[in-house]
């Protein structure tokens, strides 16, 4: 456990030493802020429009159809996931690839630590970095809570969903960076796998039968949408966990074929 902590600390430190970390943070905050406020803007436009309608039609039910949670928060959170689709490959591309390129893997391999500890350290360090990355966006939500009264539940499950999506991305990133010492290739592999999980449900409407079930199951968007709407289903949690474990397992196997123990 102590070694995992040491390795995690080193990983986190390497993120923050590099100026790229701050660029990534700026991009993330700017983009998520941009999406947040455009959703907000769209909402208030609709609000104004419906308010006029209500006075005109004298029907008070119309306004109740507007849901701040669904129209602003769920969309903004989904957009945050979308940003990660592009940023996670960049965040993760160094990981094991750089270690192999700079030959620092020889230091890790000849130190009294196990492969499991190394993978856990890298995984947790990256997860912590991503958590730190999304923390400031809570300020956007706080703004909403200050001016209005949305439901808290979907916000919390939504953030959990983002973290779980990031967790899959990190596991994929570790795997990709373990098979190559070329950072660009690692980033491309991570992006392609993530994108695949992200868009596979788009083709599902054309299909039928068992294939459809499988595709729906693999699709990360399907599982995320529950969480962004405030529903936590154990099946979704199992989905995320099994993908994380699957890619960590692949990472371990790849490393073992390269002589890591």
């Amino acid at each position, binding site marked *: 456990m102590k070694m995992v902590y040491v390795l995690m600390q080193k990983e986190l430190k390497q993120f923050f*030493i590099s100026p790229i970390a701050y660029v990534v943070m700026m991009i993330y905050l700017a983009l998520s802020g941009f999406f947040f406020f455009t959703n907000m803007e769209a909402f208030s436009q609709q609000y104004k429009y419906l308010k006029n309608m209500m006075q005109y039609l004298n029907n008070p039910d119309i306004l109740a159809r507007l849901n701040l949670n669904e129209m602003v928060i769920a969309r903004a959170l989904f957009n945050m996931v979308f940003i990660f689709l592009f940023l996670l490959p960049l965040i993760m591309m160094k990981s094991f690839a750089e270690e192999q390129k*700079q030959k620092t893997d*020889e*230091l890790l*391999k*000849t*130190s*009294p*630590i196990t492969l499991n500890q190394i993978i856990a350290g890298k995984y947790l360090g990256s997860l912590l970095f991503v958590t730190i990355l999304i923390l400031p966006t809570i300020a956007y939500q706080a703004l909403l809570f200050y001016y209005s009264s949305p439901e808290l539940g979907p916000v919390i499950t939504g953030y959990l969903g983002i973290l779980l999506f990031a967790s899959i991305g990190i596991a994929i990133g570790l795997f990709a960076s373990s098979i190559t010492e070329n950072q660009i290739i690692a980033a491309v592999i991570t992006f392609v796998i993530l994108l695949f999980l992200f868009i596979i449900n788009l083709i599902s409407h054309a299909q039928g039968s068992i294939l459809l079930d499988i595709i729906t199951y693999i699709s990360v968007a399907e599982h995320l949408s529950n969480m962004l709407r405030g529903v936590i289903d154990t099946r979704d949690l199992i989905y995320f966990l099994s993908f994380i474990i699957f890619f960590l397992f692949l990472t371990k196997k790849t490393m073992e074929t390269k*002589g890591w123990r």
Partner: protein
Amino acid sequence: MIQLHNLVKNYGHFQAVKGVSLEVQKGEILGFLGPNGAGKTTTMRMLTGVIPPTSGTATIDGFDIFDSPLHVKQRIGYLPETPPLYFDFTVKSYLEFVMKIKQVPNVDRKQNLTWAIEKCGLVDVQKRLIGNLSKGYKQRVGLAGAIINKPKVLILDEPTVGLDPKQIREIRSMIQELSQEHTIILSTHILPEVAMICDRAAIIYQGKIVMNDVIANITKEKSLEEVFIEIISKEGAES
């Protein structure tokens, strides 16, 4: 202290190391010699657990590299051919990280750090980023990382490469000093260096050990360099 039993390494169809057996006693310094591509680095990598051997095994301090890798790794310090450095760390923070993963006890850390930094002539650069150091200084940092846990066994792949003459001298005397308590294997192309500091020399050629004897025996009649060249050209003519 160190035993290699018939280590073999295949890269595809190419056999880089063809059954190397060696033994190094406690407190001995073994000079591991051989022309470029002979298999020195490959052998050292197998011994330290960087790459798995195709067949054969090795023990360090009685521990098998397969059965008890962690015990072995607690006992070794390894300087690879390319020093394994994190360029975005300072010298000091790098060495502190190395001590942590090598599990140097908390109470010893300060002392070991000061000792390694002094021994490798890093006092003036300890706060600088490793990436900005010259090649020789990077080599010194790698060396400091290898000795910082005061390991029982030191495995050094061309430790003096890239160093200036003064530093070479200091490192040599450091290696000799360390050999009182440590067992050392070092590879080098500087033959006088071997004659000066090693007790024993093993020459590897095309993946095979072609000579293994104490220095005094080897250099009875000829210089080490003459012996080396002779063996290499003789073996080369045979194969």
